[in-house]
């Protein structure tokens, strides 16, 4: 394979570089550099300049190549945004199913091409609204789903056979998915045509987001059941959205986000292989979900490295043949943790830059945060601005005119290589510990993230890192001029009444039998999915089914790593 650069040029570059450095030395002797240390938001050191010499060992064909070609550094499809723009998928969910349904209809009218559902905390943790654990939480950060009836109201009137639906749910993902399938079947839609995503990534819950229900082993077993079921029954569905987003939000560095996410992907792949599935049967339905943070080039490099690494892992480690198994398709959300309550309109700009990084990194779909997300659930106006931000990037800025426009930048290619190298080092460390489940048990990723988060906070407090409007350019006694969406406290009562009505109108004996079947499947090795679908059709609530999981597998408690 030919090198990108003619080796002869390096001597010339070295000479010119030395001369430039000398000149630079003279300049800084008079007045020193602006910062003592130039580093990314992850505190990765950045050099003053990058040249072809940094890419001496780069093999264009093997490492960069063309979009749609292995190792997919420049994009998974040959056409990328020349063919079709990314999916503008805005996360929405609030109050009752009916409220969110209205928001969904609005978003579809506004031109959004995919739906994304946020659930409230009780739903995310597998509790019904009438549980004592759910007090005060109904509808607060998403929609409450207790029963199949709620699911039917949530998607009422929406063309679910044509639009894809993403559901951000983890411990009870199998139950929520069962409700979605049951809802579609009640409407006469074949499960084979359903397209969408359940997040269903339990490993990152233990690592970062801490929404957990059962211990890691059985949690991953249920995830594997959904992978197996999806492969056979719902072939257009993405069964796991392997997520780095929350790892980053918990305070990790970009490299940690990359490494832990891929290590999670490796763990799920191994579990599905143990189930006897062929890698090319299930791997194409794995999708990914990343954060797009503040440091523009670091993020672009991260996305490019992620694609290349996953392709290499799938090909070299798991022997995947189908190109779709090698594709890392990913959704991106801009970094919620980077938004500030102070001078909140600045968040529009932050989000625009982060959205741009995601697009430069070749994302398949994108959620841009609303400016008021740090204050409360977004208002409609703020959500619209966030969507418009994407539309401006897509249709005004011209950045989507050519594919991988930053490919070939000495800096971006070097950074891409470095991210890959450092992330593989971490993955090897995890392999050595016995894989991600073992590493989690030893609190390795949790501790790494806790350390990184504390380091960053210290840097902000010590003014080594700038947060505009917070530790620099702050306004004293600032009056925050943003309208905040209030969730009606009465909603809890309304939802509880609705759930009770469903509970009163069920065939008790049939329900009991359904729950027992789920329990038997959990205890044994039979796949739980079909039993869950039958159970939700018989009126089983989310919590009733999750209680079966908790009874059989036990509950996981926070090990409290700080």
């Amino acid at each position, binding site marked *: 394979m030919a090198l990108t650069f003619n080796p002869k040029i390096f001597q010339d570059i070295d000479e010119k570089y030395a001369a430039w450095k000398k000149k630079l030395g003279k300049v800084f002797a008079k007045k020193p550099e602006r910062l003592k240390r130039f580093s990314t938001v992850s505190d990765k050191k950045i050099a003053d300049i990058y040249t072809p010499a940094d890419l001496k060992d780069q093999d264009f064909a093997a490492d960069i190549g063309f979009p749609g070609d292995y190792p997919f550094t420049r994009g998974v499809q040959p056409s990328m945004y020349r063919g079709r723009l990314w999916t503008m998928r805005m996360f929405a969910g609030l109050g009752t199913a009916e409220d969110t349904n209205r928001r969904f209809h609005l978003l579809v009218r506004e031109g959004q091409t995919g739906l994304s559902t946020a659930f409230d905390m009780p739903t995310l943790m597998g509790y019904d609204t009438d549980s004592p654990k759910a007090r005060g939480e109904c509808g607060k950060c998403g929609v409450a789903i207790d029963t199949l009836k709620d699911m039917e109201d949530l998607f009422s009137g929406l063309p679910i056979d044509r639009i894809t639906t993403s559901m951000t749910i983890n411990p009870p993902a199998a139950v929520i998915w069962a409700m979605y399938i049951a809802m579609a079947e009640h409407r006469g839609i074949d499960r084979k045509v359903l397209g969408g995503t359940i997040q269903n990534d339990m490993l990152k819950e233990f690592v970062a987001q801490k929404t957990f229900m059962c211990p890691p082993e059985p949690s991953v077993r249920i995830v594997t059941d959904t992978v197996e079921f999806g492969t056979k029954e719902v072939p257009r569905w993405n069964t796991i959205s392997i997520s780095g987003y929350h790892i980053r939000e918990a305070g990790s560095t970009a490299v940690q986000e990359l490494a832990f996410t891929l290590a999670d992907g490796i763990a799920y792949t191994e579990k599905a292989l143990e189930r006897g599935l062929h890698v090319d049967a299930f791997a194409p339905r794995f999708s990914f979900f990343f954060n797009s943070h503040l440091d523009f080039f670091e993020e672009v490099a991260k996305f490019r490295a992620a694609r290349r690494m996953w392709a290499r892992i799938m090909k070299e480690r798991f022997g995947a043949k189908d190109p779709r198994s090698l594709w890392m398709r990913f959704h991106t959300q801009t970094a919620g943790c980077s938004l500030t309550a102070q001078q909140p309109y600045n968040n529009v700009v932050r989000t625009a830059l982060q959205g741009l990084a995601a697009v430069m990194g070749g994302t398949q779909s994108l959620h841009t945060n609303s400016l008021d997300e740090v204050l*409360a659930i977004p208002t409609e106006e703020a959500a619209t601005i966030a969507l418009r931000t994407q539309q401006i990037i897509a249709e005004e800025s011209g950045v989507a005119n050519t594919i991988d426009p930053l490919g070939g930048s000495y800096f971006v290619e070097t950074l891409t290589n470095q991210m890959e190298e450092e992330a593989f080092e971490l993955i090897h460390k995890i392999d050595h510990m016995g894989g991600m489940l073992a590493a989690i048990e030893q609190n390795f990723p949790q501790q790494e993230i806790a350390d990184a988060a504390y380091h960053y906070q210290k840097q902000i407090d010590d003014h080594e890192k700038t947060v505009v409007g917070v530790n620099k350019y702050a306004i004293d006694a600032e009056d925050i001029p943003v309208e905040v969406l209030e969730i009606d406290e009465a909603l809890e009562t309304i939802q509880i009444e609705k759930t009770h009505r469903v509970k009163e109108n069920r065939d008790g004996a049939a329900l009991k039998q359904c729950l027992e079947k789920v329990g038997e499947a959990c205890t044994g090795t039979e796949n739980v999915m079909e039993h869950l679908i039958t159970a939700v059709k018989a009126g089983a609530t989310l919590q009733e089914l999750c209680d079966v999981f908790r009874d059989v597998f036990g509950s996981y408690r926070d090990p409290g790593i700080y």
Partner: protein
Amino acid sequence: MKHERRVRVMVAKPGLDGHDRGARIIARAYRDAGFEVVYTGLHQTPEEIVEAAIQEDVDMVGLSSLAGAHKYLFQTVVELLRERGAEDIVVCGGGIIPDEDIKKLKSAGVREIFTPGATLDEIVKWVKENVKPR
């Protein structure tokens, strides 16, 4: 035996949301400021937090919430402490909490609310000035 009161604080996460980045960072900052920090971990009910605060004889309970349920959760902690005759334990909170709610929570007895952007130094300073070992 050195007779000296050390500041003891509790960092607690009421409710179901698992966003513990802030709670974990603040626990470390308190330790580095010389406080003894009892950490309760996630998913605590107000009742569990109050019982733990009393058993641990802390001077302050710091609550963190990022999923919107702060009004019920923070208020209940204050009320339960009062019921147990432990209103001398200072309650403060942090998280994504709108101004309107801050006013309500303060009038309900929550001493201070820290919103995103408050620096560790500010928070630690506030504790040093407002929380004295009892």
